[in-house]
């Protein structure tokens, strides 16, 4: 633990953490890149074609629109605002630590404030407007993950079902982003009390040195974790087989063919009542 946390002695003789050890930046970046290489190699040379339960959607297909709505305008705006603020936060936080020095802190706290506001919007939007539970793993996800694992190791198991709106990997990634994101936001809001901003009156003694140290450490750990998570996310977004999903985050919809190929119409029910049948 001492190797990943930087400690110091405060004026009262107390040994307190002050921040993470900065080599963790490289650990996260290299870890993320290694994941990309291993995943790309696996998909290119070893992965078998995916097989799902035979569930003929022939009766459903004619009633579907040509373009399946996936992300509302509000959801897309949130995503891209969050992405821009997150990238700004990562660059402003870590570039100075690896030797590229510039006046970073103003950009950093402004981006942090934007991220916080966008996440608050997202929580309410997802809770009251979107299908809240669609992004959380459910029983079928876990059953199918178990089936896929058994089949991967050569054991006999039924084929998994097609995905709901979001595959399990997507849901798990969202969970990781929620944990890391809420950690940096929660700690970052308090850290704003240590610098002069237009948001709060400065109060560096809001907490004890130990509590402040733990806040800085958690902020740092979640921050470097986000380096790896964002690397993986961008990589997945540009993979050929995922481009339809990425495009849907821009245009809001995906093709009917992709929907039927990847998703279970019974688990991700598309409202066809108001859509023109194209």
């Amino acid at each position, binding site marked *: 633990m001492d190797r990943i946390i930087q400690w110091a002695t405060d004026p009262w003789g107390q040994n307190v953490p002050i*921040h993470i050890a900065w080599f963790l930046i490289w650990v996260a970046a290299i870890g993320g890149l290694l994941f990309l290489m291993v995943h790309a190699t696996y998909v290119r040379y070893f992965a078998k074609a995916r097989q799902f339960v035979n569930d003929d959607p022939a009766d459903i297909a004619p009633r579907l629109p040509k373009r399946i709505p996936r992300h509302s305008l509000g959801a897309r705006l949130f995503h891209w605002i969050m992405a821009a603020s997150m990238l700004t936060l990562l660059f402003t936080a870590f570039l100075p630590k690896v030797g590229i*020095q510039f006046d970073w*802190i103003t950009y950093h706290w402004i981006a942090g404030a934007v991220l916080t506001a966008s996440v608050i919007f997202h929580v309410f939007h997802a809770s009251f407007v979107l299908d809240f539970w669609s992004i959380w793993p459910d029983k079928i996800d876990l059953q199918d993950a178990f089936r896929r694992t058994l089949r991967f190791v050569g054991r006999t198991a039924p084929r998994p079902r097609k995905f709901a709106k979001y595959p399990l990997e997507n849901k798990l990634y969202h969970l990781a982003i929620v944990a890391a994101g809420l950690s940096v936001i929660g700690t970052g809001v308090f850290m704003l009390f240590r*610098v002069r901003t237009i948001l709060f009156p400065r109060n560096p003694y809001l907490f004890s040195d130990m509590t402040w140290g733990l806040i800085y450490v958690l902020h740092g750990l979640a921050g470097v974790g986000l380096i790896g998570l964002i690397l993986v996310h961008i990589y997945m977004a540009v993979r050929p087989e995922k481009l339809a999903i990425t495009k849907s985050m821009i245009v809001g919809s995906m093709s009917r063919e992709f929907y039927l190929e990847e998703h279970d119409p019974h688990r991700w029910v598309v409202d066809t009542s108001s859509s023109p049948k194209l």
Partner: protein
Amino acid sequence: MAVIRDVMPAFELVQPSSAVEAQKVLEQHGSDAWVLAGGMDSFDWLKDRIKRPKIVVDLSGIDELKGVRTIADGIEIGAMTTLTELVANETVKQKFGLLAQAAELVASPQIRNQGTIGGNVSQDARCWYYRAGWPCYRAGGNICYADDPDGRNREHAILHADRCVAVNPSDTAPALIALDAKFVMRTPKGERIVDAEDYFIGPEIDITRLHILQPGDLLTAIRIPSSWANAKFYFEKVRDRNVWDFPLLNVASAMVVSGGTIERIRIAVNGAAARPLRLKAVEDAVRDKAPNAETGVLAGKLAVRGAVPLQFNGYKIPLLRNLVKRAIGGVEEAVWTA
């Protein structure tokens, strides 16, 4: 924290005989190495055991880093030239008297005999929380003990503070900025020359350093072009003890007056921020104006624009305003009448 004074921790002493050799040693050991010039700042750190370098590179045996030389366009001062040598140098006195004035006001005669120009511009901050070894921002921590309602911050920054409120304590730095000096560094990538004002950095760029020298870099010389030789100079330093102290504030200006108006001017102050500040807005405002009290008032007001006092350093705002006014209008205009 118990501070054991006067007993330095063990380190390996390297005494190179050339700048090339010194830079190679610094590059080889990176952040484990410590540059020892005159030792006036270094020995405090080492004896207090706050800094614990593994390698100390003593530059005192490198003759090429010493002395004042005439070059094609001005003079070149070796980084290891002592402040006393600088004050006594005829060329410096005659052409660049601003630097001689500034150097002569550094500390005490004994310190000027030992302290070097390179060390004076590269010395560390004097904030006592930092010098005492507390884990403040400048020491790599996450707090400023001085920027606090109860913090002892009488000597600290009123301008451009960013988390850390320590100030640059150099007297020669503003004079060199006013003289448009160039700093020559030997780095792992080769020679690098920067304008004097770009040698210094504030906490918004790097909160742990006052200048741009990275581990492996060596300041070798300071070049002063002849463009400001024999200009009208003004240097004033305000300190608590006139016999020996760091500046509360200082001001340095070089002015060329033609036809009763300011044709060209460079003005810089130190002690107000973590880096010596060139007052470009003041320069632009007073150009083509008469160097009198009225112009000085304008300059003084501009100089303190954006100043934010801490609990105990509010006096620095009128002090800076007056110093800048005097630098423009002269001492005879000292009384603030605006």
